[in-house]
């Protein structure tokens, strides 16, 4: 009951947030200088051409009027038509979404594995040089932003020792049998490991660049809370019961140390998704972020709106998932 009520409340407040985001974005991008029509037309277009096109995209009306036309469409699932691509915004955006989702989730998985291993190793070897080394590595990983990691990785594994692809999502000459845009996932389902390997080899560096700072945060925070948990009486007691160090850390300490990390990872994951914009650009990865940059450069107003709304939806869904997981994992909430 309690959970259901708070879920309904969350959904309602999510709706309000989304409306707020929509309003702000809509007005801001229209106030910012830059005229989409001017960018579309070849030099030497006549006044009439400009007026005709402006009317075609509804840009001759007042901004509030434009907003209500657009919002009315959105409520019916119509996000308008991209000015540059001349295709429905919804199709474009949903077509790119799988690429960005796969990249972000791959990055999250890498970050959790790297950060988790660092935290567990650091806890096991607490007080030794190994722990000191892990702290130094964490500090370095944190103080370099993701796009610099991207450049470092490109230099290392793209140029100096070219083992990974540095651009695109898949080798263009390959024949793709996919019906969805979830290439990574679908290639696995179809057991096409050759394609899967190609896709992973394209994704690996951008995903790693996104993952490194998050891995450092996970490693640091989880190690901290693991070390605190290791001092709790019941953890000490499990040692006196005869359990080995690995059992004590993983089975006793970890489940209770993981909660604070989980909340933070939720927040950081939304930053990571934000980071895909620049990382996708650097690796020419055909995802939402790359499309967002093009849309901004071309002042493609409907497309910008669509992408921003989609990002906002993703962020709120991530937060919701984190909160639900937190409630599931927290014994005090579960049995209350």
């Amino acid at each position, binding site marked *: 009951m309690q959970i259901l009520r708070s879920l309904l409340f969350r959904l309602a407040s999510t709706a309000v947030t989304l409306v707020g985001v929509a309003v702000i974005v809509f007005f801001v991008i229209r106030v910012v200088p830059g005229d989409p029509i001017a960018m579309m037309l070849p030099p030497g277009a006549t006044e009439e051409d400009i007026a005709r096109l402006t009317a075609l995209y509804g840009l001759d009306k007042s901004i509030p009027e434009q907003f209500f036309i657009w919002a009315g469409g959105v409520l019916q699932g119509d996000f308008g038509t991209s000015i540059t691509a001349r295709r429905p915004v919804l199709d474009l955006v949903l077509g790119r979404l799988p690429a960005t989702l796969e990249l972000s989730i791959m990055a999250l998985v890498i970050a959790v594995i790297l950060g988790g291993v660092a935290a567990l190793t650091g806890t096991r070897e607490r007080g030794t040089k190994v722990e000191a080394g892990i702290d130094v590595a964490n500090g370095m990983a944190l103080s370099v932003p993701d796009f610099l990691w991207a450049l470092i990785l490109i230099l290392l594994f793209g140029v100096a020792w070219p083992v990974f692809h540095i651009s695109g999502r898949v080798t263009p000459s390959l024949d793709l049998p996919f019906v969805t845009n979830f290439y990574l996932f679908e290639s696995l389902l179809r057991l096409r490991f050759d394609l899967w390997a190609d896709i992973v080899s394209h994704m690996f560096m951008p995903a790693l660049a996104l993952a490194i700072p998050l891995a450092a945060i996970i490693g640091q925070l989880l190690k901290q809370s693991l070390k605190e948990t290791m001092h709790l*009486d019941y953890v000490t007691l499990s040692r*006196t*019961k*005869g359990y080995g160090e690995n059992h004590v850390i993983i089975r006793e300490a970890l*489940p*209770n140390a993981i909660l604070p990390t989980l909340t933070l990872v939720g927040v950081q994951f939304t930053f990571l998704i934000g980071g895909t914009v620049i990382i996708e650009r650097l690796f020419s990865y055909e995802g939402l972020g790359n499309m967002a940059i093009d849309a901004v450069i071309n002042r493609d107003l409907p497309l910008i709106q669509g992408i921003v709304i989609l990002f906002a939806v993703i962020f709120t869904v991530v937060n919701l998932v984190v909160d639900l997981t937190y409630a599931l994992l927290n*014994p*005090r909430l579960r049995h209350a």
Partner: protein
Amino acid sequence: MADLYQVENLRLSFPDLTRKPLLGPAPRTEILKDLTFTIPRGEILGIVGGSGSGKSTLGRVLVRLLEPSAGTVRFDGRDITHLAEAELRPLRRRFQMIFQDPMSSLNPRHRIGRLIAAPLRLHGSEDPEKGALEALDQVGLPRSFASRYPHELSGGQRQRVGIARAIALRPDFILADEIVSGLDVSSQAQVLALLEQLVAELGLTLAFISHDLSVIRRLCTRILVLYRGEIVENATTAELYDNPRAAYTRELLDAIPLPDPDQPWI
């Protein structure tokens, strides 16, 4: 062998991080200074002393959560002073420990039944669940508690679960560190009576750390008085009360509860 524990010239020091120089190792402070004593089988040994005198540290050495810096600790004739964790593991069943705070002593995620049964399974019990239920019987808790979570119990009940977890393993020795300090007076009396009864029934040897001399006097057969990491008195309860030899012991007996000699009153 009459003595379960034989402790000789035990020393233990910790690095003192407050005095650590910028480079190089921190100087060490000695917490336990040259302790020699034995714990005869079947005795209830009271360990008393002011706050910070090293009682808990000594207790943790006895159950080998801490490794001594010098000296020897023999358990049942076997030198356990520097045994590695892996060598200790099969022995650990035999010396158990109960902590002061019954809530933090129990993993909040597990039911009582599992909390008692899991260590039994680890040590190769045929039927851990049955062992857990029997342990609940022995500490006077209903068997239905096996399916409860720790937060669904009162403080006294949780402390009984802590005792049940210890005795279920059929240990030779139990270390009880201030186990009744957090309880109200009537739960205190019940837990102490239970402990006394179990020690007699199961032939346990018990070390009981406490600030409370009235409790120690009732429960313990021998008393060890620690003062700043040194033993100032080691006598039977009767001897100690009739004829306290150390000045510090007299002070202890006169002034209960005892403030830390180094700390001003707050």
